[in-house]
C-alpha cells in the first residue's frame, strides 16, 4: 500500500478516458507538487495513547503494510527517559491496570519498559474522611482459593511508558515520525480529475509539510485540534478542583514491605487524596482539592507541605480545614494535633519525610466526553475522546482500551478490504468503546459528588454503602475486577 503520488496521478489519467481534461488542468506536475503526501493513518499526538496506537498497528501482521505517520508538537526524542536515577521519579505517574499491561505485552511493548521503575501494588485502602468507614481491596484475603492476579495495578511513570513505546517504535521501523512539529490547520482535500480527496483530511504542519490521511486519529489530548476539525462537541463540566501531584519519600518502603505494596485513598469533602507506591521508599501523591487550597499547598515551605500531606491522611476534616486556612506553621500544628488523633498509624501510609524538589505541580480537574469518537476518516482516542476525574486512576487505562479497540477495528477493516477511514469501518470502534467509557466516567463522577458531601444523611448512607461493599465479598470482587479491567 505504498502510494507514489506522482505515479498514480500520471497513470490514472490514462486509465480514465471518460474524464476529459480541460486545458488549464493539464498542467499536472504543478498539481503533483501541490499535492499532499498521502498516508493511510496519521496520528496526531505522541503521548501514551498515540504511541501505543501506531506501535499496535505496526506490530500487527494484518496492519503492518499501512503507511503510518505520527505527529507530535513536543520533541519526542527530548522527552525520553535517559539514565534515570533510582531515587528520582517523575511526578506524572499512572496506575496501569492488568488489562492495559496485558495489551502492552500482546503488542510486544512491555519488554521495553524499565521494570525497575514500575511498582505493582497488591492492596488498596480506601476510607471516608468524615466517618472513617473503610474498604480494603486486596485479592489475597478475599479470593484466596481463586486463581486471581494478586496485583491490583502497576504504578508507572508516564515517561517510562512513552520511552519504551518509542524504543519499540524505532525497532519496528517504517513509521514516519514528525516531531517536534505543530499542526497548523486541518482542511478537507480537493477534487482533481485524477483523485477526489474531498473526504480526506489534509494536515498542514508548522514546517510547511502537507499530509493527507485516509484515517486521521486524534490522540491529541483534551483540547484536541482533530476533534475540533471533526466538528465533534465535547461535553462535561469543570469540578472547580485542582489535582496536586508530587513525588514523595516515605520513612520506609511501606507496611507490607517491598513485596506487598499498598495504595491509599482517603475521601475528603474537598476531594480525594491518594498516595500510590513507587519502588523503594518513594510514593506519588494525587490530591484533589479546591483551587485556593491547591495554590497554598504549592506556596508553603517544604516542611509545612510535608506536614499537610501527613495530616491529610491522619487528621479530621475540621483540623485540616484550619491548617489549610493558615499561611504558615502547618508543621507545628500537625505535630501538636496528631497526638490527639485516633488514626491507626498502620492503616495510613508511612510518614512522608521528603518531597522531591520541583515535583509539586497542579492541574485543573474536568470531566469531558466527546459526543462520538468517529466521523468520516476521523477517530478519537484517549483524552481527545474523554477526560476523567483521576480518583479511580482510569484515565490512561481508558486510552489503552480505546487503542486496543481501534487497532482491532482497523484490523477487521483491512482483512475485509474495507476503506479503514470509512464511517462504516469505524462504527465498530465507537460501539465498542463509547458505552464502556461513558459508564466509567459516570461512576467516577458520581463518586466524586457523593464524597463531596460533608454532612447530613448522605454521609451516613455512603459509609453504610462502603461497609456493605467491604462485607459482601462477591460485590467487592466485582468492583476490583472492574477496576483491574479483568
Amino acid at each position, binding site marked *: 500500500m505504498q502510494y507514489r503520488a506522482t505515479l*498514480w496521478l500520471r*497513470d490514472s489519467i490514462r486509465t480514465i478516458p471518460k474524464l476529459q481534461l480541460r486545458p488549464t488542468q493539464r498542467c499536472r506536475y504543478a498539481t503533483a507538487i501541490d499535492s499532499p503526501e498521502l498516508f493511510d493513518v496519521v496520528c496526531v499526538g505522541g503521548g501514551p495513547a498515540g504511541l501505543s496506537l501506531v506501535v499496535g498497528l505496526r506490530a500487527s501482521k494484518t496492519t503492518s503494510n499501512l503507511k503510518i505517520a505520527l505527529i507530535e508538537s513536543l520533541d519526542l526524542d527530548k522527552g525520553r527517559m535517559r539514565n534515570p536515577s533510582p531515587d528520582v521519579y517523575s511526578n506524572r505517574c499512572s496506575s496501569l491496570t492488568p488489562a492495559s499491561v496485558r495489551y502492552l505485552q500482546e503488542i510486544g511493548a512491555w519488554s521495553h519498559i524499565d521494570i525497575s521503575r514500575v511498582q505493582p501494588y497488591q492492596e488498596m485502602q480506601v476510607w471516608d474522611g468524615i466517618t472513617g468507614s473503610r474498604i480494603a481491596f486486596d485479592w489475597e484475603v478475599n479470593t484466596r482459593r481463586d486463581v486471581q492476579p494478586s496485583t491490583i495495578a502497576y504504578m508507572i511513570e508516564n515517561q517510562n511508558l512513552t520511552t519504551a513505546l518509542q524504543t519499540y517504535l524505532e525497532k519496528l521501523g517504517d513509521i514516519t515520525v514528525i516531531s517536534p512539529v505543530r499542526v497548523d490547520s486541518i482542511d478537507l482535500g480537493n477534487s482533481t480529475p485524477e*483523485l477526489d480527496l474531498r473526504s480526506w483530511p489534509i494536515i498542514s504542519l508548522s514546517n510547511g509539510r502537507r499530509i493527507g490521511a485516509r484515517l486521521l486519529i486524534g490522540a491529541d489530548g483534551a483540547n484536541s485540534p482533530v476533534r475540533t476539525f471533526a466538528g465533534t462537541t465535547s461535553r462535561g463540566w469543570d469540578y472547580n478542583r485542582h489535582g496536586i501531584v508530587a513525588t514523595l519519600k516515605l520513612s520506609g518502603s511501606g507496611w507490607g514491605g517491598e513485596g506487598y505494596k499498598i495504595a491509599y485513598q482517603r475521601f475528603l469533602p474537598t476531594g480525594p487524596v491518594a498516595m500510590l507506591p513507587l519502588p523503594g521508599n518513594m510514593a506519588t501523591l494525587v490530591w484533589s482539592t479546591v483551587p485556593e487550597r491547591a495554590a497554598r499547598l504549592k506556596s508553603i515551605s517544604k516542611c509545612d507541605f510535608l506536614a499537610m500531606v501527613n495530616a491529610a491522611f491522619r487528621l479530621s476534616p475540621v483540623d485540616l480545614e484550619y491548617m489549610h486556612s493558615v499561611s504558615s506553621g502547618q508543621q507545628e500544628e500537625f505535630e501538636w494535633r496528631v497526638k490527639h488523633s485516633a488514626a491507626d498509624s498502620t492503616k495510613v501510609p508511612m510518614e512522608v519525610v521528603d518531597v522531591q524538589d520541583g515535583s509539586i505541580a497542579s492541574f485543573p480537574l474536568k470531566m469531558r466526553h466527546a459526543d462520538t469518537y468517529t466521523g468520516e476518516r476521523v477517530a478519537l482516542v484517549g483524552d481527545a475522546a474523554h477526560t476523567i476525574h483521576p480518583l479511580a486512576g482510569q484515565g490512561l487505562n481508558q486510552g489503552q482500551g480505546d487503542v486496543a479497540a481501534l487497532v482491532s477495528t482497523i484490523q477487521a477493516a483491512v482483512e*475485509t*478490504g474495507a*476503506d479503514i477511514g470509512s464511517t462504516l469501518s469505524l462504527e465498530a470502534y465507537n460501539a465498542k468503546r463509547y458505552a464502556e467509557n461513558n459508564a466509567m466516567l459516570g461512576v467516577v463522577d458520581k463518586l466524586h459528588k457523593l464524597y463531596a458531601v460533608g454532612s447530613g444523611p448522605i454521609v451516613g448512607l455512603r459509609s453504610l454503602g462502603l461497609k456493605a461493599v467491604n462485607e459482601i465479598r462477591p460485590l467487592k470482587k466485582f468492583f476490583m475486577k472492574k477496576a483491574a479491567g479483568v
Partner: protein
Amino acid sequence: MLQSVRYFSNARSQNHQSSVDPTEISHFNMLASSWWDPHGPSRLLHLMNPLRHEFIARCLSSQSDPATNSRLQYLDIGCGGGIFAESATRLPNTASVTAIDASPGVLAVAESHKRRDPLLMSPGRLRYLNTPIEKLPKPASEAEKYDIITMFEVIEHIKHPASFLSSAIPHLKPGGWVILSTIARTWTSWITTKVVAEDIARIVPRGTHDWNKYINEDELSTWFLQQGGWESPRSVGVIYVPAVGWREVPGSEKLGNYFFGIRKLPV
C-alpha cells in the same frame, strides 16, 4: 417450484442481448446517488460485505490442491456502486478486479467513488465496464480468465438466470470459483424482503425485489452439477439481526439470504 423451473430453464433467451431486466436497470439508476451513503438504502449491502470475504476465504481454504494463483483475478458481475469490487481490490492477495454492471448510472457512481482512493486508482488494479456479461468479450486465452467470478445480490434481479450463468462460466479458469449471494424463494423471504424490508421498516426502497425471481440454493447446485465439470458446492445462510448486523446461521440458506460457492473442476 414450477415457476422457478420455468425461469431457470436453458431453453429460452439465447437470442436475448442481455439477461438483465430493463426495469431493474432503471431502478438501480435511481438508487445510484445514495449507493455509498452509510445510512442510506444500501446500508445492508455494506454491512454484508465483510461476510462475503469470509465466505470466499473459506471456499478457497477448502480446496485440497493449491489455489489457481497466489494473486487472484476477480470478475465481479453486477458490481453496482462497487462495494465488493473496491474491497476485493484492496485485499493483499488480489491482482486485479474487473467489475461490470449494465446500469450506467450506478457505474458512474462506482467510477466517481473509486477516485476517492489512490490505491484503487493505481493502474491495472480496478477496472469498471458498463456491459452485461453477455457482451463482455470472451477470453482469448487462459490467462485472460478469472480466478473468482462473483455475483452478489444479482441473480434475483435476472430474468433468465440460466443463460446469465452460462454466459459467465466461460470467463472462469479451471479450478476457479463462482461465488454468489442471493435470496431463497420462501415464505419467510417474502415476508422479510418484500413486507418488512420494503414496506414496514423501509430499509430498502419499494420495488427493489421481485420475489418470483428468487432462486433456491438446491436449484443452483443442481443446475451446476447437471452441467458437469463442477465440484464442492457449498452454501451458508445469513440473517440480518437488527442492532447486531449480519450473522451466519447454518441451515438458514433454506430460509432467506444465503451465500453459494461452487468450484470449476481443475484440469
